[in-house]
């Protein structure tokens, strides 16, 4: 390998210094935080941006005819521009703010599913979805006569592409809604191939990018996707704000989801008309402070750059697969070729919850359970796994600490 061609390595210690929480101790030990896939920690830039707004520049948006409201509206709409640049959207009006990824998927299930799909059509998901990309489609199925089809995965934890394509062949599939990166297995789905095949059979494609966008550059135009959703709090931003990107012509054609203030053209008791996108889908006072925090998070991520982030996390993941997988009696779940910084595992003779508690006693935070993916657990023949997940601030030494702690867990339960 040509060393010169490698991206500039991250200065991880400089990055860590920007996260106040990483200097906390837990149970008398330095915090080893390996649960970023559940929610990431927040850099100083995000914290300061939200505090600064509350202290210096805050009012409601889109309605005040005064200085504070105008400035706050600029900040809120400025984050829309930042999101558009982050995912290379063609048009800033294609960016809709929601509460989180779940809110964004529910919006599409309602406004596209009920509004534009016909009973008898089908939605395809995969066998490695988070509950947030299962339950809204079940609700659509039961309320609107839509069939729900599940594309299987291989034992390695990859989409069974031939079986996926078979589900599309009858031409009745209106939408493929699929993860871009599994929160349990770390698997990236082959997004461009999925879109090409789905479009060939007349189906639109939604990607749940909650995990993927944390680790890799996302370009919705290059993907040629129809919808892309993600959440702010996994991307080093605050909770309470998520993003739906959708093609303008689809968003224009879709009926609103929630009704209320800010989403109307005009209101009379007889009828109301809707605002243009994206405001048509943003009823009520939005997550103003959270949008400011998300904007700061996006700037922060873009300053580091996805090349450096992806290279750092690929190195961490390779290290984790070798170190964790190298502990006797520890089994890594999922062997996808293309994967991101999430490693699930089981420990022989120990339940995942006991593993997580014993790791916590050693200052190491991992998640354990079904990871909001019960059907995937059943497919894997498991009740639960433990999961270590990485962020831009994760170090190789933290993964070494996990491996060392897992050896102790094994001995403890031996």
């Amino acid at each position, binding site marked *: 390998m040509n060393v010169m061609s490698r991206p500039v390595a991250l200065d991880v210690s400089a990055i860590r210094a920007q996260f106040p929480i990483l200097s906390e101790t837990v149970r008398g030990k330095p915090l080893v935080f390996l649960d970023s896939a559940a929610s990431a920690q927040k850099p100083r830039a995000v914290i300061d941006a939200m505090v600064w707004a509350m202290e210096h520049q805050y009012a409601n948006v889109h309605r005040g005819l005064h200085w504070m409201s105008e400035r706050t509206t600029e900040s809120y709409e400025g984050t829309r521009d930042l999101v558009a640049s982050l995912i290379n959207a063609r048009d800033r009006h294609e960016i809709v703010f929601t509460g989180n990824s779940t809110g964004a998927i529910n919006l599409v299930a309602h406004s596209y599913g009920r509004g534009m799909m016909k009973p008898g059509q089908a939605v395809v998901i995969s066998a490695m979805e988070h509950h947030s990309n299962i339950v809204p489609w079940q609700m659509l199925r039961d309320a609107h006569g839509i069939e729900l089809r599940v594309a299987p995965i291989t034992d390695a934890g990859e989409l069974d592409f031939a079986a996926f394509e078979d589900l599309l062949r009858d031409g009745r599939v209106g939408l493929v809604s699929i993860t871009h990166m599994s929160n349990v297995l770390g698997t990236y789905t082959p997004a461009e191939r999925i879109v090409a095949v789905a479009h060939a059979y007349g189906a639109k494609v939604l990607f749940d990018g909650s995990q993927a966008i944390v680790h890799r550059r996302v370009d919705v135009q290059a993907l040629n996707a129809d919808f892309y959703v993600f959440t702010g709090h996994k991307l080093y931003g605050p909770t309470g704000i998520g993003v739906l990107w959708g093609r303008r012509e689809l968003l224009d054609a879709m009926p609103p989801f929630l009704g209320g203030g800010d989403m109307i053209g005009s209101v009379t008791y007889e009828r109301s008309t809707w605002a243009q996108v994206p405001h048509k889908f943003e009823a009520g006072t939005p997550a103003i402070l959270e949008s400011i925090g998300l904007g700061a998070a996006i700037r922060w991520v873009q300053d580091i750059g996805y090349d450096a982030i992806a290279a750092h996390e690929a190195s961490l993941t390779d290290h984790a697969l070798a170190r964790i997988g190298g502990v006797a009696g520890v089994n890594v779940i999922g062997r996808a070729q293309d994967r991101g910084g999430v490693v699930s595992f089981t420990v022989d003779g120990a339940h995942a*919850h006991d593993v997580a508690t014993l790791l916590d006693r050693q200052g190491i935070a991992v998640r354990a*359970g079904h990871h909001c993916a019960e059907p995937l657990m059943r497919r894997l023949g498991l009740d639960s796994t433990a999961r270590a997940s990485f962020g831009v601030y994760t170090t190789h030494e933290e993964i070494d600490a996990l491996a060392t702690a897992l050896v102790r867990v094994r001995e403890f339960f031996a």
Partner: protein
Amino acid sequence: MMFDDLRDLYQEVILDHGRRPRHGIRLAAFDASAKGDNPMCGDRVQVFLRHADGLVAEAGFEARGCAISVASADLMAEVVAGRSDDQIRVLADEFRDMARTGRSADGDAAMERLRPLAGVHEYPSRVKCATLPWHALLAALDGQGGASSE
């Protein structure tokens, strides 16, 4: 001892009963049964009771779960044998209090047997692991099919 830092919760009796439960069987004959389900973590337990002469003569269970929940179910099955339903309900209340606070009244032999589980009170996310079998037991006594720890 290299595991001292882990022993406050995982005492030897818990590890032992979690690994080798004595009562982890579906009773051949039972007159009351109920399932317990913790939807947040996927732990599942089913409790079986056989009464005789107004007392629980025998208790057994089938469980899929962590060491805490299996050990709790096993110790529970042990201590409820020979007690009336009303006595068991009192014991269940005392156990739930102990799991939440870490404290229990002195002098009761059954509570002494269950005391190793008191350590869960320092782990709010694990209290339900210890109490799940008891929820199922109470559901069985009340003639309900199941219980949730939620």
